[in-house]
């Protein structure tokens, strides 16, 4: 390892203001700086309303910054780019398309070769554990299965960066745990750079190399915590002493915030 490599995603002093209907400005994010190295798994945790989704949307190029810069691979973001895959909190599947056709949407938009896309789509469905469901419609799938299809779709055009906004937030605890482990497996198989937003401290620690703790009103990065837990991780990782110690530390931030809010 040489000295510090240029981060893949470089967020510097980013601010975001929204203009409300009454004309006043709402500061969603203030002076946020964050660097994500290539192939890193970074989680953003924080209470709702602290600008996590907004930051993710700005990285995705769906929202402009009000100040500061976001660079990917040294290039400032001007709009959406095709080397990013997005997973939203809801699966956002098209109900009139089969699971396979949904996964193929990026290939269709990017006009990728159809035969190899078909094969890749089937491989991805297998990867997310949906083989045999290619010809089903979204309304025939459970919540967890829909979200897996959404993950397969985000991987379809083989993006270098995966941005996930509370992808498992709507799932029950058991499904969520299974999906976490599955995401780890998928990530290890594909080695992408992942930024994942979550409410859950456990989820963040289980998945990530690094956790960015956000604080609200206006949002900013309160703390950056490295997670030096060996990979591959599993359900047993939760009883790792480092995991427990970091979980307590993270929890203390949120409790401090709650007390400050009183």
């Amino acid at each position, binding site marked *: 390892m040489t000295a510090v490599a240029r981060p893949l995603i470089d967020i510097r002093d980013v601010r975001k203001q929204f203009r409300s209907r009454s004309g006043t400005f709402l500061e969603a994010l203030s002076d946020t700086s964050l660097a994500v190295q290539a192939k890193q798994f970074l989680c953003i945790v924080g209470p709702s309303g602290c600008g996590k989704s907004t930051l993710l949307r700005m990285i995705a190029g769906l929202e402009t910054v009000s100040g500061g810069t976001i660079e990917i691979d040294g290039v400032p973001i001007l709009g*959406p780019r095709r080397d*990013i895959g997005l997973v939203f909190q809801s699966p956002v599947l*098209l109900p009139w398309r089969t699971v396979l056709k949904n996964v193929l*949407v990026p290939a269709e*938009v990017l006009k990728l070769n159809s035969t190899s896309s078909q094969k890749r789509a089937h491989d991805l469905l297998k990867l997310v554990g949906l083989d045999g469901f290619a010809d089903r419609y979204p309304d025939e799938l459970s919540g967890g299965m829909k979200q897996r299809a959404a993950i397969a779709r985000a991987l379809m*055009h083989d993006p270098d960066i995966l941005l996930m906004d509370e992808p498992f937030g709507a799932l029950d605890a058991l499904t969520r745990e299974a999906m976490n482990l599955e995401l780890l497996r998928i990530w290890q198989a594909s080695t992408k750079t992942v930024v994942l937003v979550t409410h859950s401290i456990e989820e963040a620690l289980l998945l990530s190399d690094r956790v960015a703790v956000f604080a609200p009103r206006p949002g900013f990065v309160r703390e950056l915590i490295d997670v030096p837990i060996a990979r591959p991780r599993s359900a047993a990782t939760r009883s790792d002493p480092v995991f427990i110690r970091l979980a307590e530390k993270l929890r203390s931030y949120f409790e401090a915030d709650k007390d400050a809010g009183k």
Partner: protein
Amino acid sequence: MKTRVAAMLERYGPPILGGIVMLLVWEFVPAIFNVSKLLLPPPSSIAQSLWLIYDRGLLVENFLVTLAEALLGFTIGSVTAIFFAFIVTRSLIIERTLMPYLVGLQALPKVALAPLIVVWVGIGIESKILIAAIISFFPVLINAIVGFSTVEAEKIDLMRSLVASRWQQFRIVIFPNSLPFIFAGLNVAIVLSITGALVGEFIGADRGLGNLLLQLNFNMDISGMFAVLTVLALLGIVLYALVRFLHVRFVFWAKPDNLRSGPN
């Protein structure tokens, strides 16, 4: 097997039985009160008239003429409306320019245009097609505009994140997403298109069920008029069933009582 027959009986028995009772009442009760058979002909004489009209070779041809007018008008009107809605929702300037006029025209009873159109286009089948098209146009237009503008923001975000062109956004998300709205318009338009064709035929035509109805009316053949009304009802059912078939075929995913059921 037995239970299936029982279920069929339970479902179709009452309306069929009700229909038979109604026909019997219509057949015999007016006679008891000395209602003139000429003014309110009983079903038996309507059936006779129907056979007579058929026998004179008037039924099938006129049926097909009106069917063609309504169906062609409906198709032309609907396709034009969807195209217009596409243009209108594509550009804010066009929308701002056209919307007040479209809303204004929407308020105008379209059948009022029928005499003018017959004068302009003539008494042939073309004027009926045009009237049916104009009358079908507006419900489809309004519904398509609403449909094209009612898309979940995240679906558009998904397309934007892939740097999809506006045409791709339309083809992959906006258009399929609008189909439940468009079909709501089509269901109204198909019925209106028959009205359009008939009104056109009333104003001036040498063929069609409307024309036949006027001729029978001129001869005071009320039983014959009832016969034509029966055929018109049949025409309406055929066309509505056609749209219904397409609706179920293409918007299967938006039906609330979905036939398929998932693992949870």
